[in-house]
């Protein structure tokens, strides 16, 4: 059985852990560098990207996660997508540059602009203070869009969604990630 690490510095890592288990893999919460050696793939959960970034940098985890991403798959949701992007705006902040996209933080506005929408036919997408992917590089592929903006993008072994499949019972997104391991 494959093991998926869920970065557990802050955010909805517990919901991801449960989704991974339901999708048929082992899940571990990752808080330290040495744990990266024991996992086949990593999920960067939803939460506050600035908080996660501070904690990643403080513990020397940022470089280790980037290094991990050069060999193994990483899936980022919402804040995780912001961390994986090449470029972040509104406001600009450092990121891991593992997927060639430009992401605008809080693209839809504040919490009252959060929404649940159907995308790609019948996939329920929960957007919470979600970012908007404003640019997709030539190597990246759009898997689903909402309102004309890409919301599910993959590039090689890596994948991002600006919505939260871990907050629904639908395991299709997690299953696709498990196929990359």
């Amino acid at each position, binding site marked *: 059985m494959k093991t998926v690490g869920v970065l557990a510095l802050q*955010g909805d890592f517990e919901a991801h852990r449960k989704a991974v288990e339901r999708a048929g893999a082992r899940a571990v919460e990752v808080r330290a560098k040495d744990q990266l050696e024991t996992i086949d793939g990593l999920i960067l959960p939803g939460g506050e990207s600035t908080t996660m970034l501070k904690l990643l940098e403080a513990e020397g985890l940022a470089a280790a996660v980037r290094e991990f991403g050069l060999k193994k798959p990483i899936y980022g949701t919402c804040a995780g997508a912001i961390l994986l992007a090449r470029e972040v705006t509104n406001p600009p902040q450092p990121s891991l540059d593992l997927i060639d996209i430009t992401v605008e933080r809080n693209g839809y506005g504040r*919490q009252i602009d959060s*929404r649940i929408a159907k995308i790609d036919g019948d996939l329920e997408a*929960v957007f919470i203070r979600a970012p908007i992917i404003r640019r997709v590089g030539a190597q990246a592929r759009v898997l689903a869009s909402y309102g004309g903006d890409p919301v599910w993008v993959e590039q090689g072994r890596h994948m991002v969604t600006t919505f*939260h499949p871990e907050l629904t019972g639908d395991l299709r997104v997690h299953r696709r990630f498990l196929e990359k391991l």
Partner: protein
Amino acid sequence: MYLSEDFRLKVGLAEMLKGGVIMDVTNVEQAKIAEQAGAAAVMALERVPADIRKEGGVARMASIRVIREIMNAVSIPVMAKARIGHFMEARVLEALGVDYIDESEVLTPADEEHHIDKKSFKVPFVCGARNLGEALRRIAEGAAMIRTKGEAGSGNIVEAVRHIRTIVKEMKRLTVLGKEELVHEAKNLGAPLELVEWVAANGKLPVPNFSAGGIATPADAALVMQLGAEAVFVGSGIFKSEDPEARARAVVKAATYYKDPAKLLEASEELGEAMRGLDVAKLPEGELLQTRGW
């Protein structure tokens, strides 16, 4: 109601705040310090609870100018407090676009019988609770996040510990009761049977359960998280301490590594003086904030 789209979005934001620290701030400068230190959200208010306690008078919703300046200055969620039962303060905050409203006992209550009908709002609410009955009544009214009340502005963790332990113990108890006993229990708790049954089946609240009221040190934050809190609010503890920046960073670290004593030791080192605390047992009944709310 619990499966409605609106309610799932409200709880969804609370899910995103888990493992984080929500810090009280009174101006843009403090909000930026909080964000830089890694706060998951800030609570915009005019006076921190320790000052409200000291200065007295009627404590109301913060000035709109202050809240708006803070919303413009940081990219993390901004919460603000409304008085218990003051649904028009809440409507003003909703129109302003704050991300969460705290219907808070820290402010002077506007209604001594009723809380706000939180279901009728699009913006999510957090409410304080000292026990399970109080928590479930607030959820029944539409709160999408519960926090312990503790004793705000005291710098003393004892009440937050009492409240989180009480709520966790009362939930555990429900999980071993029979169906007919739950009906009786709903009556005792003063809470809807539907919610009592949900807690009995799941052993937890149907919304995230955070802790607030008296958290002053990294070890305080770790303690309430060990006891079952999923995130912490720090009110006066940061900006009433000697070194707000270092303390803010340390509490953020503690909320992440609350199971790791070596990391907590790192977080606890090289901090200046914590805020001066109050012995809650010596506070006259009339000065307690936690008894506000019904």
